[in-house]
């Protein structure tokens, strides 16, 4: 069960550039490793991360197996208006892990 962890400021001034920190537990199995029997362990990673701000996508990342396990990402966005930031991590198997944060912009 992949747990996301985020750090977003609760309040910001309009036009301020805010820092968003994200972390999620996930093995990010590369597909290159072999098990004790010598068989390849199939790839299973989170391939896409998105951040939407009141429904509009403001950031996206395309990930490949070179992204380390339990992926960490810090990025920035402009605090334009009060509302909700939604974060989604999409697994190779189609599962979407999501979490949200509300922000007050003054």
């Amino acid at each position, binding site marked *: 069960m992949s747990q996301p962890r985020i750090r977003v400021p609760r309040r910001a001034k309009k036009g301020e550039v805010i820092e968003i920190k994200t972390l999620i537990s996930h093995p990010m199995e590369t597909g290159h490793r072999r098990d004790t029997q010598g068989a390849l362990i199939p790839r299973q990673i989170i391939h896409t991360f998105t951040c939407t701000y009141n429904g509009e996508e403001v950031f996206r990342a395309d990930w490949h197996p070179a992204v380390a396990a339990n992926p960490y990402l810090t990025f920035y966005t*402009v605090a334009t208006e009060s509302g909700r930031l939604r974060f989604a991590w999409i697994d190779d198997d189609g599962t979407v892990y999501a979490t949200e944060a509300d922000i007050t912009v003054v």
Partner: protein
Amino acid sequence: MLVVMRPLAAWSTPEAVQQAIRERIGERQPQPGGMSLTLPKIAETGNSVPLTVTVDSPMTPENHVLRIHIFVPGNPLPVAATYHLGVRAGKAEISTRIRLARTQRVLALAEMHDGSVRSDAASIVVTLGACVEEIWSN
């Protein structure tokens, strides 16, 4: 006598790296400068290497970063990630952690709104590689 042959890990060839770059920026020639890729000089473990890319850009409608690409030519696959920014990003900087299979020169490209492409690269020594290790125990 039964001999078990295990195929060698398929490393990225220089051609594969070039193709991955072409697929993303076409025939445009990246220009070094205007951005920085920060990596440690030595990776204590290839499994988790902290990386930051910063592009000098005011991120206005007239001058902003569209995408940042990270290439890892020494890994089995040459691309690590692509980040889609745009004016709403406010600041063209990302920090993350990547895996490195072996000592190599990591490359970052930034596609600008005006069609230009910037680049920076950083060499890193990797003593304990990631990606292709065998699980011989727990």
